[in-house]
């Protein structure tokens, strides 16, 4: 075992020991942990949300796309920024309703708004399906970090297994309490390392940013612009819009919204949050520097670019530090995601079907599900050849299907009923799954369309059809709802 791996291992042990310490003595129940007693102020909500948004994807996937695709990688920076504009209006509304109705989870929100337990189960399942690709990203990240830091001694698949096992152990030991401190350490380390790499590497190799970009542009003409077709301007706009709609639909992010002290917290955070995303520019700088310094990484290998370049440049002990920070960015969100999926399945799906079971039974089932979900994620990690970015985009296409019915539910006189919402969401999901499995694009489905329309993100079609089905079915079942459920008339 080399020094880099030893340092990474030390980080893992540190994270686990912090997890053990944070859970000792505090016997919080599920509810308290999820919404933190609704007492969090601006800074804490900011950290909580940043911790969930910036994962190993921002570290490795962002530089990977800059390396492999060039300018289109900027979508990561823009969708997060524009999501904060949406958050100014959306989050205080969600928070207010959740507080008035003492809601705990995203699924509760749908149940309460549409008076429909089935919709709650469906929303929970959508959350589960969408989060799997994101867990796969974290496992891939762990695998990449461990195998790269071993300088080839550990194969990628062995590293993925090790990553999955560490993640499972971490979740099992630190439990649902997690460790806020690990999250804080993770954020500080990530910013410090990304800032350092993004400034040092381009200057070290090219003497500055402009010479670096000029060299990239000379070697790969057009790479720094959005191409005419494929990942073009219209792809960028449609993808960003899709991602902005999906940004707050993640169940764990939704729960973080509930934890705030007031709606004002979100409006205040919206001001400062976009500046935090500028950190991603430094990630891109690393990816662009890697293009000429570690050429030849093709397809999903592009995600290795940050670490490969670092290995070329630095001593093993420093690779250990970078790998350790990377490990935390995969471990912290990975554990939250794994726990969210397990809790959703146990609490919002299983318990709905078996209402008589005790809470303790539900917690035990959730714990049992953790390794099962980890195994499923390992399967997809080892059998899928996608880049991290492609996986994240897929997760977003799925989770965004919740947006139309959520948005309408915030209206005073919501014209949408539970039948419309359910039909819309299911249609949207099916379209995303079919398109993903057949790897079609709008271009292959409708070859006669103009190029700009062909490049639209396929998730947008699913969203549009979802929306239309939702409205049509709601209108068709309007009388039906009123007759069957006189109580819900006020909400329609």
């Amino acid at each position: 075992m080399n020094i880099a791996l030893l340092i990474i291992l030390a980080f893992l042990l540190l994270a686990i020991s912090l997890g053990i310490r944070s859970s000792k003595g505090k016997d919080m129940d599920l509810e308290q942990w999820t919404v933190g007693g609704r007492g969090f102020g601006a800074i804490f909500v900011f950290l909580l949300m940043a911790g969930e948004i910036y994962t190993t994807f921002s570290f490795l996937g962002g530089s990977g796309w800059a390396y492999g695709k060039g300018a289109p990688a900027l979508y990561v920076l823009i969708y997060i920024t524009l999501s904060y504009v949406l958050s100014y209006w959306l989050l205080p509304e969600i928070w207010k309703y959740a507080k008035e109705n003492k809601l705990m989870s995203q699924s509760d929100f749908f149940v309460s708004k549409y008076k429909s337990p089935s919709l709650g189960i469906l929303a929970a399942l959508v959350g589960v399906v969408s989060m799997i690709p994101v867990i796969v990203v974290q496992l891939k990240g762990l695998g990449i970090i461990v195998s790269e830091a071993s300088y080839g001694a550990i194969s990628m698949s062995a590293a993925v297994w090790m990553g999955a096992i560490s993640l499972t152990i971490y979740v099992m030991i630190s439990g649902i309490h997690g460790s806020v401190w690990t999250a804080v350490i993770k954020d500080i380390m990530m910013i410090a390392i990304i800032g350092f790499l993004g400034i040092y590497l381009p200057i070290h190799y090219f003497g500055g940013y402009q010479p670096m970009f000029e060299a990239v542009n000379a070697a790969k003409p057009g790479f720094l612009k959005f191409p005419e077709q494929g990942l073009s301007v219209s792809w960028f706009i449609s993808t960003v819009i899709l991602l902005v709609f999906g940004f707050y639909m993640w169940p764990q992010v939704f729960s973080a919204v509930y934890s705030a002290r007031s709606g004002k917290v979100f409006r205040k955070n919206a001001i400062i949050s976009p500046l935090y995303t500028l950190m991603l520019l430094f990630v891109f700088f690393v990816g662009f520097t890697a293009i000429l310094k570690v050429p030849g990484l093709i397809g999903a290998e592009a995600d290795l670019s940050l670490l490969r370049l670092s290995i070329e440049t630095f001593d093993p002990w420093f690779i250990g530090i970078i790998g350790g920070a990377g490990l935390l960015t995969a471990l912290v969100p990975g554990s939250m995601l794994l726990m969210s999926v397990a809790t959703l399945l146990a609490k919002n799906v299983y318990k709905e079907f078996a209402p008589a079971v005790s809470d303790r039974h539900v917690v035990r089932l959730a714990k049992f599900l953790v390794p099962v979900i980890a195994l499923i994620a390992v399967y997809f990690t080892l059998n899928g050849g996608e880049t991290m970015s492609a996986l994240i985009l897929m997760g977003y296409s799925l989770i965004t299907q919740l947006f139309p019915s959520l948005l309408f539910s915030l209206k005073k006189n919501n014209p949408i009923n539970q039948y419309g919402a359910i039909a819309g969401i299911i249609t949207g999901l099916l379209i995303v799954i079919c398109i993903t499995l057949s790897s079609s694009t709008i271009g292959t489905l409708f070859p006669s369309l103009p190029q700009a329309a062909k490049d639209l993100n396929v998730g947008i079609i699913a969203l549009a059809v979802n929306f239309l089905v939702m409205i049509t079915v709601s209108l068709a079942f309007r009388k039906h709802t009123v007759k069957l459920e006189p109580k819900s008339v006020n909400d329609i």
Partner: protein
Amino acid sequence: MKIIYILTLVPFIGILGFLPFVNRIEPYVLGMPFNMFWMAMWVVLTSAILGIMYKLDPRNREGDQE
């Protein structure tokens, strides 16, 4: 209240709406290709716009409980 709604749209128009016209490499600004600089600039502007919205929004003048 009206002006706040308009301000909400400004970052979307500035970033997404103007993209076809700013999709170019030259001139380099702060060492970045122009399209990348344009977006970085808009991230900072978005922050400023949200700050203005916050100041104009009467809801934020009330206390924490709202």
